[in-house]
Structures are given as structure tokens and as C-alpha cells.
């Protein structure tokens, strides 16, 4: 798979990342190298093979629905870059 500049910009954008103009070519080449291996998978017959997303076969792990202690608001906000009145604070999202 050949990776072009537009693809690099697209997948960076999906991850909320800027890519500098001078870095785009290098990223395109490096991603292309790894995806070249992926083309090798196309030679395998995978029809009817179930995908494995997880090594252990476990589903729907529940605990009892009981109240228990958790982090206090103060503790949960300790690492916040910005906060106010017990909330995380971010720049205005809705235009005036």
C-alpha cells in the first residue's frame, strides 16, 4: 500500500494531530513501509476465520451494584489543567 501525503494528513487529523509540512514525506514513507507488510496478509485465505479481538474468552463481567467509596471531586480534579467550582474547565465551545 502506497501512502500519500493526503492519507497522512487524514489519519493525523483523525487523531487530532498536526503534521508539519516538512515531516509529511517521512511519515508517508514510514507508514508505507509497515503497511507493505500488511499487503502480505492478502495472500492468506481468511474466509470463514473468526476474528479474535481478545486472547481470553470472557464476556460481560459485572460486579454487584453496590455503593462504594470512589475518588472525591477534589482528588479527581487535582491534575486538571484548568478547573472552576468543581468542574473541568475548557475554552468556550459555543459561539456567542
Amino acid at each position, binding site marked *: 500500500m502506497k*501512502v500519500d501525503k493526503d*492519507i*497522512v494528513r*487524514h*489519519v*493525523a487529523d*483523525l*487523531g*487530532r*494531530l*498536526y*503534521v508539519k509540512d516538512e515531516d509529511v514525506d517521512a*511519515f508517508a514513507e*514510514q*507508514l508505507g*513501509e*509497515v*503497511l507493505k*507488510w*500488511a499487503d*502480505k*496478509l*492478502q495472500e*492468506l485465505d*481468511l474466509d470463514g*476465520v*473468526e*476474528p*479474535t*479481538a*481478545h*486472547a*481470553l474468552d*470472557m464476556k460481560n*463481567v459485572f*460486579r454487584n451494584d453496590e455503593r462504594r467509596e470512589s*475518588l472525591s471531586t477534589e*482528588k*479527581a480534579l*487535582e*491534575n*486538571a*489543567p*484548568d478547573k472552576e467550582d468543581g468542574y*473541568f474547565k*475548557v*475554552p*468556550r*465551545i459555543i459561539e456567542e
Partner: protein
Amino acid sequence: MKLHKLSLYEAKEGLDKKEFSAKELVTSTFSRINEVDEKINAFISVDEETAISKAEEIDDNRAKGEKLPPYAGVPVAIKDNMCTDGIKTTCASKILENFVPPFDATVVKMLRDTGFIMVGKTNLDEFAMGSSTENSAFFTTKNPWDLNKVPGGSSGGSAASVASAEVPLALGSDTGGSIRQPAAFCGVVGFKPTYGRVSRYGLVAFASSFDQIGPFARNVKDVALSMNVISGHDEMDSTSADIDAPDFTKSLDKGVNGMKIGIPEEYFQLGVKSEIKNVVKNAINTIDDQGAMVEDISLPTTEYALTSYYLISPAEASSNLARFDGVRYGTRLSDENLKSLYYETRSQGFGEEVKRRIMLGNYALSSGYYDDYYLKGLKVRTLIKREFEDIFGKYDVLMAPTTPTLPFNIGEQIDDPATMYLNDICTVPVNLAGLPAISVPCGFVEGNPVGIQIIGKPFDEAKVLQVASELEKTLNLGQKIPGES
């Protein structure tokens, strides 16, 4: 007596017999760190004050005749991607440079509860992505055997701290080989337990379906003892297995007589260098001589494992790392508007390799590519898992090289990600199938350590440790510490 050289069980015995105090032991740890870490750079942070005061408390309690937890006073180091209450946990990333977790990871709590004293947090490739620690945003850890070489990665700091006798025990995490490969490069024992055996609660997630915490030590018995401490079900981790853990030391002296051991031929191809093959084959012959039934076997899908891993793990990483958005914790690098907050924080906060994996993951998951990349990766994973299941119907364990090459020079591979990824070629199949595997030192080539890998059935860590222990005994390499004869 040089206390820092003591292994975990020796340190415990000495403390139990009151041959030295916890304070003397912990003080020797920090003297050692002060002496060698300037060169090795294994630690991102150390916490001497708390550690010494904990040791004094233990000594006081011992003097009063109080009952102490089993490892009271034994020093341990923790990879800096496991949360430690009140102590910075950076993942070697700028984005978490000042993150102080408000809670302990379950493994950290288990170590504290059994009396271990946490002396510091060790260096890693940023978010555990890499094979050399060169991707750390702060500095590169050096291989204690040769300061021009990498210690391996991503748990390179933990491996180097144990190899250079700064600590007897360190925890690491293994997503695609990040415990076993640095253990091999640094000449120590490194163990990745079965997926689900050890709680991941409080481990900063890289690829959740692969990540597993495990120990580094200078001998197999120490690894078994530490596994007794950190194993077990944890309701805080929904992927933790509800299966009782045995006493892992019980099998250590049983030998290998009558055991069936498979040698997968593919692990000796895949670009594995002849000097590695020779040392590993010699170790296998040693085990053969001890009465095991050793046979060559084939796992033909192995050649597709690396590709499957490098499609699935970045996909999981791109999703896991979405949480670093500059809102709830970590660094925020713009306040102009929400878009620039996200983009500036993430673009400046993440290093090159992390960005590359996020992009790769987004590619594999995005519309139009999902079926050919991510989904195919998962299907190959099924084939690999099945192959292991079939072979483990006939064999107790498998033995193979841990790494394709000797430790490489710092700077040698860092500009070529695809080459760097090839370091994982012998270790990733195990992560795809969730199996337990250990790397044990099996020899030296021109002063560089070589590791051999022993792979077991799910939740049969005991047998892996049994073979590892026998190998350690018969090879009798001793617990060499670099720079000391």
C-alpha cells in the same frame, strides 16, 4: 557486605535473620543508584526520603516484635507507566510530565501491602512504544553491559536497574515483548505472565488486549516469589482472570525429566542471527541432556504475527490515547479554542513514535481500510492462537530465541521504525495468543548477553518457571553484575 548485590530472596532472608536492617538495605540501594545511575539512566524519579522513612518504620516495628509482612524492607522499582499514589507517573511522555496519580495501581498496592519499599520509577519508551528506550521524551537508558548499546525496550529502565544491581526486583509491562526483549539485552530474567493473570488496573493502557505486567529479577526463584505477590483476580480490572494462582515456587526444583518440549523452527528463521541461534541451541541441548523430550515443530503462521500485531496494537493505542486531550489531566498547551487545545496539546505533547502509531492505528481502523487491515489482523490472530492450542495439545512448553539480534548501538535503528519493529519478531506471537513466556539469560557473545524464551500454555506459568529454573541451574552462568568480576 555489599547489600545492593543481594537478590530478592537473599535480601528477605537477611532481613528475617536480622543480619542487617531495612534502613541499611535501602540505604545501600540509594548509594548504588547514586554511584551508577548517572551512567545508566535507569530511573526517571527516585523517592529516597519516603523510602528511608518506611524502612525506619519497619525496623522499629521489627524491634518491637510486631508481625511484619513477608517482604518488609525489600526494595523494588516500578516502570513509570504504573500509577503510584502521590508520585509522578510520566509514561516518559511530555504530555504526562507532571501527572501525579491519586491512586495506586493494583500491583503497586500489592507490593506495598507485602512490605516492599518502592524506591523509584524507571524509564521506558514513551507510552511503552519502542524497543530501545530511545523514544523516552526525557533520556535514553544505557545497557549496563555496554554503555554504547541500548538496554532494549520498552521496559529498558526496569531491566537495566535490575541488571546493574540497583534493585533486586522491578516491574515492567509487556505488550509485544517489552519485558522479555530488554531482559535478554540486559542479561536478567524477565517474565510475561498469561494475559489476565496480573491486574492491569492502574497500568496506563497502550494496547489493552495485549498489555500485561510482569517482573524482572536476577534469578528465576525471585521471579516466582514476586509472581506469588502480584498474581490474582482483581475486580477493578474486568479482563483479570478469576482463576486461583498457585505457589509458583513449588515447581522450581522438579527438573525436566519426561517433559515434552517443542522447538518451533520458524523462530530460528525470521532474520535471527547465527550467533543467537548457536547460543540458544546450546541451551536447548543442555535441557535435552536433563531428560526432556525435545522435538522440532512448526508454527507456520508465525511469519504473519508481526504484521497482525502492528495492525491491531496501533489500532488499540489510537483509541486508548484519545484520552490525552488536555482536559482532565496532563499537560494543556493552548487555551485559545477547543480545537487548538486538542491539536496543540497532542501535537506537542506526544513524541514521533507515538504519533506514528496513532496514525497507523487510525489508518487500520478507518473506513475503506478496516476490512483489509484491522479485521485481517484479528483473523490472523485467530490462526496463531489456534496453532498454539494445537501444539500445546502435544507439548508442555516451547523454547525459542527471545531476540533476533544482540543488543544494538544507541542511534542505530531509531530513524527506521520498520527495522525497529523487527526486534519484536520472536516475542509478539505470545502476546497475540495471551500466553505466558519468560526470557532467561543463556550465554554471552563478545560480552553481550543472550536470552532464551520459554513459552507455556495459558495459566501454566508454573511449568515455564520449572524449565527456566532447570536451565538456570544447568547452565550455571551465575548472577553476574556488569563491571564486577
